[in-house]
């Protein structure tokens, strides 16, 4: 091998190694930071035959059960129940609820599973849109319930 080819080989090997390292770092990081989405029924009954384990980070989306929102008397903490079509899970959240949080509305919470049916949320999202239903939830509930009355306003001049 002449020196030039050797140099080139070295460079190519270096680049390939670099790419391999960065890709694996990226995949590792991704693996750590992916939150799987569950509906309340999937948390209780399992998703694809697997139950989420306590301590696992996850996202859960569902409708806030009417009348289930309870504010702690002293602190900011709030608990509420979340439901899709089956069993109910309980969410604990210490923080201010988003502007559009309401009973009966769809929300998505991200957090950690404490036990079989309790989630400690560190983020609760309600979309900045009156009729938000998380798409994952909409998927799960497809064909089961009707759409909530929408405030659409189309060509026929409806309000």
């Amino acid at each position, binding site marked *: 091998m002449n020196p030039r080819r050797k140099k080139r080989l070295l460079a190519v090997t270096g680049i390939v190694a670099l790419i391999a390292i960065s890709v694996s770092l990226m995949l590792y990081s991704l693996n750590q930071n992916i939150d799987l989405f569950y509906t309340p029924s999937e948390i209780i009954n399992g998703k694809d035959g697997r139950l989420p384990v306590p301590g696992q980070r996850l996202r859960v989306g569902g409708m806030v059960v009417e009348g289930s929102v309870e504010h702690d008397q002293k602190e900011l903490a709030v608990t509420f129940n979340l439901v899709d079509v089956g069993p109910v899970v309980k969410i604990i959240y210490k923080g201010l609820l988003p502007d559009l949080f309401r009973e009966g509305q769809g929300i998505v919470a991200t957090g950690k599973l404490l036990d079989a049916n309790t989630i400690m949320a560190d983020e609760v999202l309600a979309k900045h849109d009156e009729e938000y239903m998380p798409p994952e939830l909409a*998927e799960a509930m497809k*064909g089961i319930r009707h*759409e*909530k*009355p*929408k405030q659409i306003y189309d060509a*026929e*001049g409806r309000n």
Partner: protein
Amino acid sequence: MVKKYLLLFLPLVLFLLLTFFLVKGLFSEARYEVSTQVDRQLPEFSLPDVMDEDQLYTRQVFENQVTLINVWGTWCVTCAIELPFLTSLREQGVRIVGLYFEQDLDPDFGGKSLQQIRTDIRQTLNQLGNPYQFNIFDVNRDYSMDLGVTGAPETFLVDMHGRVLLHHVGDLNERVWQDKFLALYQQAMLEQKNG
């Protein structure tokens, strides 16, 4: 040389791969079917009158009489526009029942009280005409959901057996009445007279 070509085509291939997912994603989005109740029996319900919570209605109120069910609310601008026309229909003898739903009944947001809603309704109807025999109060908006209502105003034509003949989305006016409703309405009335 071939290797170089492959490399140059790589961006294109990657992009096309991405496109595949984008197209798929575009159409896999969850959407509901708006259930149309046409040609089906009205679902069961038991709901109070908007002016008097002790007065309960069930599906029986739609039997033996051809009826227009009009979904409305005082908060709905277009509903206000169609009220005078609906009133003129009532004067021609059409039986119209309101299915009222309220968006403001939301204690968290300082919404209206039932009392206020009643005052609003009375005021609106005094001003623009009252086409309704009575108004069913869809307290939790679930009956309108059962009917497949997506907004207001919407109007259903129901025959003497409590079957939905027509579901109209949007305001009801002279033109829509003539084009869409009249023939079906007359047929239903004929059946009612004979039956």
